[in-house]
Every structure is written in C-alpha cells, then in structure tokens.
C-alpha cells in the first residue's frame, strides 16, 4: 500500500545542507499498525509530513495506493490528503469556536459531500468514538482526550487508506491516552492501516511494528509480537 524508495529530504540553511531524511526505503502493507520512533531531530516528523502529503521529498519516490505522490501539484496533494489520509495531530488541531460535529464534517465539505450526508456521517463517527452526547460542544468545552477523539472521528470520516497519528497522546493524561490507544487498536482490528509517530516506548508498544529512525536513516525495523493487554 505504501512504498517508499530512496527518499531524501534536504534543507538548505544558507550554504549548509542538512539531510532530514537520507535515502530511506521501506514498505507498509494494508492493515499494518506501525510506530515510527526516534529522538527529536531524527527526521521522523519530516517522514511523517511526506507520508501525509503535506511536504514533498527532495528526491526518491513515495507510492501510495499505486500512485506516485512525490511530485504532484498543490491541489492534487490536497486531494490525496482529503481522500486517502486521515490525520491525528498532537495538538488535536480542531477549528476553534466550532462544534464537534462541524469539525468532523469539515473534510467532507472539501470533497463535495452534500450537507445532510455530511452531518449524518459526522454524527455516526462521533458516536463511534463515544462522543454521541457532545455533538454540539465546541472544542474549548471538551477535555484533551475528548478533543483527540473528535480529531480521530474527523480522520476517519473520509474512510482514508491510512491514518497518520503524530504523537497522538502527547498532550493527554495517561488514563485518557489508554482510551485513545484502544480506539486505534480497534480501528486496526477493523482493517485500518495506522502509522503513528511517538517517542514514548510504551505507546509504541501498541503497534505491531516499530521503525526506529535516527539522523534521517532507519536504524531498526522490527515487528513486536509482545502486545500489551488492553483492559
């Protein structure tokens, strides 16, 4: 499903060239649950941005669902982000002063889904993440864990090929973090492909496979079979 080959990203600061990603290659199959780990500055965020079609590589290919996403136009990338990728950010990134249901419906409006369908589907997904009672709450009326669940509903609502999560539990109290992790668990069991960036080993352990990255290179790529028990 995801095929990354010889991917490099080079930043220029004055005359100095910094390789945030240096000739990275890997593949992720459908229904995998992958954690990408690494210290800060390792290039994991850059990798995440390229996988999320938020950024383009300097060289190399990124093939998503058989389509080379590496060098598309801005609008084509927007379309890929809209239909194939669901984002879950560390800072939730919900629209302020906007209700949960409207936040979840937003990606569908960019895809041209009629309004009634949008609201109905958004309601379904909010119920799925356990927020059926809080459809009309705005983001500042919700706790961090609840906001992240709204963000997950928003990531799922377009039924994307992959869900990209960037430190999804970074801002959340640990009890609520478990809740988020169990949602991801369930989604993975339902057949969603999940890629999660984290620097917390116990969060990474939820994944079936961990890719370690350092100085723009993959240093270790392992599958963990030791799974933590979910209550």
């Amino acid at each position, binding site marked *: 499903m995801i095929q990354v080959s010889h991917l490099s990203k080079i930043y220029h600061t004055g005359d100095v060239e910094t390789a945030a990603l240096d000739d990275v290659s890997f593949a992720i199959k459908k229904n995998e649950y992958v954690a990408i780990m690494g210290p800060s500055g390792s290039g994991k965020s850059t990798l995440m*941005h390229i996988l999320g079609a938020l950024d383009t590589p300097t060289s190399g290919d990124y093939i998503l669902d058989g389509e080379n996403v590496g060098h598309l136009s801005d609008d084509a990338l927007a*379309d890929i982000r809209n239909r194939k990728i669901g984002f879950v950010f560390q800072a939730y990134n919900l629209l302020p002063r906007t209700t949960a249901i409207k936040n979840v419906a937003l990606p569908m409006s960019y895809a041209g889904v009629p309004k009634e369908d949008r609201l109905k589907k958004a309601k379904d997904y909010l119920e799925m993440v356990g927020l059926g009672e809080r459809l009309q709450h705005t983001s500042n009326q919700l706790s961090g864990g609840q906001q992240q669940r709204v963000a997950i509903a928003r990531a799922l609502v377009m039924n994307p090929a992959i869900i990209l999560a960037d430190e999804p539990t970074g801002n959340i109290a640990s009890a609520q973090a478990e809740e988020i992790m169990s949602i991801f668990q369930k989604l993975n069991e339902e057949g969603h492909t999940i890629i999660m960036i984290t620097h917390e080993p116990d969060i990474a352990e939820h994944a079936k496979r961990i890719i370690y990255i350092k100085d723009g290179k993959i240093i270790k790529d392992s599958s963990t079979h030791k799974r933590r028990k979910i209550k």
Partner: protein
Amino acid sequence: MEYSETFLEALATLTINKLRTGLAALGIVIGIGSVIALISLGQASQQSIQSQIQSLGANLLTVIPGSQRNGTVRGAASEGTSLTRADADAIASSSQITTVKTVSPEFNSRSQVTAGRNNANTQIIGVKSSYASVHNISLASGSFITDRDDTAMTKVAVIGPTVVTNLFGEGVDPIGQTIRIAGQTLRVIGVTAAKGGSGFQNQDDIIFVPLSTAQKQLFGENNVSSIAVEAKSAEVMTDAQNQVGYLLLARHKLTDPEKADFSIFSQQDILNTVNQTTGTFTTLLAGVAAISLLVGGIGIMNIMLVTVTERTREIGLRKALGAKKHIIITQFLIESIILTFVGGLIGIVVGIIVSYVISLFASLPFVISPMAIILAFVVSAGIGILFGWYPARKAASLQPIEALRYE
C-alpha cells in the same frame, strides 16, 4: 463546498471580532459616504447656480457694447458706448428679425440714493416696460415702469426690497414716497418681489427708473449699457443671435464680424461656463473623497492581512484536511467582500443623510444622483476584491506544514 455555506461561514468569522470588523468597515463607510455626500453637494450647487441663472430670464440673449478695434488695440468690453436706444428699437421693429419676442434696452449704473436722512449706494437701471417680462420681474406692490413713463421721462422709480429696508426701514410701505438720485426727486411707484440675494449680485438691491430718465436726467448719457433680447423659443436662439448680430453690424456700418463693436452672448453660454466650473469643482471633491476610499480599502487589506496571520494554523489545518487553494482564496475573498459590501451599504445611507443635512443648512437643493450610488457600490465591491485578493492569495499559498507549525 457551496458558496452559500462559505458565505455563512465568512459571516460567522466576521462576527467573532465585532470591534475589529466594525473598524475595518468604518474606513469604507467613511470613504463611500464622503464620495456620495461630496458628489451630491457638487451637483446640488451646480443645480442651484443653474436655476439662479435661469431665473434671470429664459431664452435670453444679451448684447453688450465692445469698443471698436483700432488696429490691434482693443478697448475693454462693456465700457464702450457703441449701443444706443435706436439699436434696440431697430431690433424690435426690423422686418429682417423674425425670431425675437421682446427687446429690452437697459442703462446700468451705480449711484448714491437718499430718502429723508437715509442714504445708500445702489444699482440704478434705466428700463422700458419690456424689462419686466424679459427678466421675470414680479412686483410685491405697486406697478412697474411703463413705456409712457419712458416717453414722458417721468421721475418715477420701482425699488427692490433691500432698498426699501435700507432707505425706509423694514416693513414700511414706500409707495408714494420720494427718493433722491443725482439731485433729482423720484416718486416710488412699485416694489419688486424678493428674488433672493445670492449669486452674482443682489437682485433685491436695485432701483428701476424709466430708461430716458436715467439717460438724460440722472446720468447724462445717450448710449445704453446692454440690450436684452428674448428669443421666441430655445430652438431659435442661434437664429436670433445671428439675425441680431447682422442687423447691428449693418447699422454700425461694419462688414467684418471680427471687427464688431459689440458682443452677443446667451444664457446658454453662461450656463456652459458655470457648468464647466462647477463640474471641475465636483470632480475635485470626488477626488478628495476617492482618496479616503483608497485609505479605507488599505484599512481592509490591513485587517485581512492580520486575520491571515492570526489564522495561519487554521489555514494549515484546512489545507491538511484537503482544502484546495481556490477554496481558501474564496473564503478570504468572501470575507473581505462582505466587509466592504456592508461598509458600502452603510456608507451610502450615511452619505445620503449627510447630503440631506448639508442641503438643509446650506439651503441647497437635495440631489442624490443614482450614478454616484452605483459608482459607490461598484467601487466598494471592487475594493473588496482588490484589497482582499492579496491577503487571500497569501493565505492560500501558505505551506500546510509551516502553517501547522506556526505558533
């Protein structure tokens, strides 16, 4: 995303920070308001001057003397003595002249006038009875100068209301009283109705006497200062001007119109000159107003740029969720268009109110030209697009990752 939805969303965003939205729109309100107020002020004064000129008499030609050319030296106009009563009589009686209705020879001078202990310096006009119809003179009381007064050189006078106040006091009936001009005693036989005191001269501060009395008894002159000619209709003005011109050339034994010792001008000539002047004035006012409109537009751009910076994260997020460039551009453009449109509407109302108030205080007619309103409308929408375009583009071309990272 349908436009109606984008519109509602933009409206919701604008109502979040009401003070800022209000201040941004205020620039446009003032700009549009002053354009409308100043244009209507200019047009109102134009109308007012036009109607004053028209009140001097319709279809009117005025013949004034000009001193004869001597080689290349030409004397000052209107100081000449080339026109006489006989010229006026000829215009009135000649068979060649078919387009003239009334002819009024006039002798114009200023003099000191006394009545009892009061005295005033005022305009004295020697006239025949035709003056009243040519110049739309109506009387408040008494009667006007007759042709018999002119033939008999009677010592009578018709005076304006300002003269009544100056010489006899407010509210006094002067008819039958006497005034003294240049050592002669004249009996007041009529008072003209007030015409209003603005314009080129005060038409109420005036004394009419029989033409012959003015020429022979008061000032000792044989010429006339001007001959007013009323044409039969507005259509034959040019014919009348030509007929009168050729008749006078023939009478003065001149063959070359270049050497004419008189000039003829029509009300239309004066109107054209005045229109040109007030037109320039209106353009100047509109120019000043346009500058405030421009400043208002820049104010909108400023606010929109601040909004873009403030909402960088939101824009980044929208792009991450799949918003294409044109969606972001549309969103911000619609916001600035709403801003200028609402500002423009309020500005039009304010402009109309301001012009109404000005018209009350300056006793000008209340004129609102639909052109000014359409112009203001188009300009305000244009400003919304023009000054909203740059911030909208800036917002749309933000890189989603950089926008998302922005704190």
